């Protein structure tokens, strides 16, 4: 009692009407709580419910069909194709953009004056609208009119049309994905590198860790471990969410070679109007994203304390 009255502003009395401090605290946090329910929890719940029905967009009726949508999904080769493509895309984009950003960050960290310039250059793709930039990329990677095409023809090589060939199209999308993600990761790594003070670098130089690889192994990498986990998980989520480039450049084609999960959800739900089935896909998507986050929390809590 004594300690609590110490905390109170002098002259203020305990509120009358039986309202405890806990009740007041709950009242104050209620708006945030309600907002969270309304915008996050409720929609997820609704999606979960719709995924158990045969609801089609625009209809007024729906039937409860249990796990029918999920059974259909497991039998759908296009679902597995989309999942596989998303996985390949993620497996290419994440390691390259994470490791590339790490190397760039280490290199940039030792620059004094040009650092700002490079930061801006690498961060520009993050700020640009991917939809608009996709058009530029489609020109750059075009097999007939782009600079890549003229380079190939100058070298006497056969033209390489990225978005006409199935495998190449996926690689083309991955290149754009890396280009878009690397700047973001770079900034996160540069922020993480500020942990390594100037004196720490000097101490390591004195102790003989002055080569690039030695410093990376003994100092930079271990100290960046927490950052790396965050960057890795964020990159996975980002890569799994790829949508703009697919929608603008390939529309999932050619022949479903670049169909990704999020794009398929969109097509099935809003073009095919199969909201029930789309919701089932969304549930799977949410589970995957949630799993990434859980990995981050689990590994992040186990990380070395310093």
């Amino acid at each position, binding site marked *: 009692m004594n300690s609590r009255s110490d905390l109170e502003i002098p002259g203020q009395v305990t509120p009358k009407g039986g309202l405890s401090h806990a009740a007041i605290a709950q009242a104050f946090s209620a708006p945030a709580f309600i907002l969270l329910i309304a915008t996050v929890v409720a929609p997820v719940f609704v999606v979960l419910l719709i995924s158990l029905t045969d609801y089609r967009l625009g209809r007024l009726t729906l039937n409860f069909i249990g796990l029918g949508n999920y059974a259909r999904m497991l039998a759908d080769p296009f679902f597995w194709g989309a999942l596989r493509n998303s996985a390949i895309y993620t497996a290419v984009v994440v390691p390259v953009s994470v490791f590339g950003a790490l190397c760039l960050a280490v290199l940039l960290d030792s620059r004094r004056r040009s650092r700002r310039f490079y930061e801006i250059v690498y961060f520009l793709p993050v700020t640009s609208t991917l939809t608009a930039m996709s058009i530029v990329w489609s020109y750059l990677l075009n097999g007939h009119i782009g600079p890549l095409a003229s380079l190939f023809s100058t070298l006497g090589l056969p033209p390489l049309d990225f978005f006409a060939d199935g495998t190449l199209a996926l690689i083309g999308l991955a290149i754009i994905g890396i280009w878009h993600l690397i700047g973001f990761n770079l900034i996160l790594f540069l922020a993480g590198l500020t942990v390594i*003070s100037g*004196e*720490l670098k*000097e*101490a*390591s*130089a*004195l*102790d*003989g*860790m*002055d*080569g690039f*690889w*030695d410093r990376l192994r*003994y*100092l930079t990498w*271990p*100290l960046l*471990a927490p950052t790396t986990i965050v960057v890795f998980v964020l990159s996975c989520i980002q890569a799994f969410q790829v949508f703009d480039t697919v929608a603008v450049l390939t529309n999932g084609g050619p022949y479903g070679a670049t169909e990704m999960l999020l794009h398929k959800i969109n097509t099935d739900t809003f073009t095919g109007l199969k909201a029930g089935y789309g919701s089932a896909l969304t549930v799977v998507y949410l589970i995957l994203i949630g799993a990434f986050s859980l990995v981050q929390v689990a590994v992040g809590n186990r990380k*070395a*304390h*310093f």
Partner: protein
Amino acid sequence: MAAGVGHGVAPLAAARRTFVGADRTGRQRRSAVLANKAEADMADHSIDIIDLEKRFDRTQVLKRINLHIRDGEFLTLLGPSGCGKSTLLRLLAGFEPCTSGCILIGDRDVSPLPPKARNIAMVFQSYALYPHMSVRANMTVPLEMSRLSFRQRLPGAALLSAKVRAIRKEITAEVESVAKPLGLEALLDRKPAQLSGGQRQRVAVGRAMVRHPAVFLMDEPLSNLDAKLRQQLREEIVDLHRRTGITFIYVTHDQTEAMAMSDRIAVMEGGEIRQCAAPQEIYDRPDYLSVARFVGATAINEMPALVRRGSVSLNRQVLEMTLPGLADGEYQLAVRPERLHPAEGGNADFSLPVEQVEFTGNEVGIRCNGAEIGSGAIRVQLRPESFRQLRQGRHAGERIALRIAEDAALIFDASGRRVSVLPTQPAQLQEDRLELAV
């Protein structure tokens, strides 16, 4: 206290400074120093800093530093914040290239060498321990880096090669032998974050010691600790220096620390070394008014003085002492608080009204109003017994008659440089000459 050690040193250092004359080029001087060394004993780790300059863009941080540090010496760089102490240390360690000049350790020019090849260890102000490594790993890593090749350090190398195992065992034993006297044995498996400030400081010392460096650099290593711990670690560092006999270069802005620990102190100001001498010498014979102000626990008393035909007057009160041979003009007269004595009889230089009396146990501080002699507050320090004697039958707020102790007045000219004419007796002069001749 180590102060007594360097008694005959200052003249020697001065001699070396004159030897490293101002009109020769750096290269000539360097070879001259080298030749001089060849005559002396060889395997030493003394340091010669010759005409060292450092510029960052347009700001000149270090201006023509010349300094000789003897093998096994404890030298302190003392100066206010921003005067370039850390920069000088970082040039010595090789973290920054010199703009011009060179640094010799032993008889080797280390300027082109990277930090790890200079056989130097350093304790940083923030300790700079590797936060992700245990205390043991912190101390092991410098040895691993110097004794094992890149391949031998790869994970699993110890499993494949008996040689690597033997080296690692040796390293472990060495780390433990360094950790023991520092009291780190129980802490070896902790991370730096789990240590107190004093323990971290010891680990930093331990990490620096394992390599048995030729030179030990410390950049304000005690400034992050509380007063009591600082006192204790100060003694430990002095002990460490005595035990190892390594050349120590210690940076601090705390004059008490510098006075208590060093063989010699180099006082820096604005990127220059103002004076380099034993603590006693710095305290008693500061070359510059700024040095006199910086050194000493209680501020030195400054009084504007007028000299006419050898007689000195403070605001028209003529003093007893005479300064024959000193050009007429205005000077600053400075006296340490403990060298102002209460005067009995008629031999007082001046008498001043007492403003405040402060008793601190082992001494009594008296603050007088110095307006009558044209200066600010004049501080006097007395032993308690002489104060009691003085106090008998009197009250505070009265006047106190003061006399400047013989040989205690320091005279500085308008530029703040001490003028060498001393108000000394002939016998004293002779003694000084003898000392110079040593």
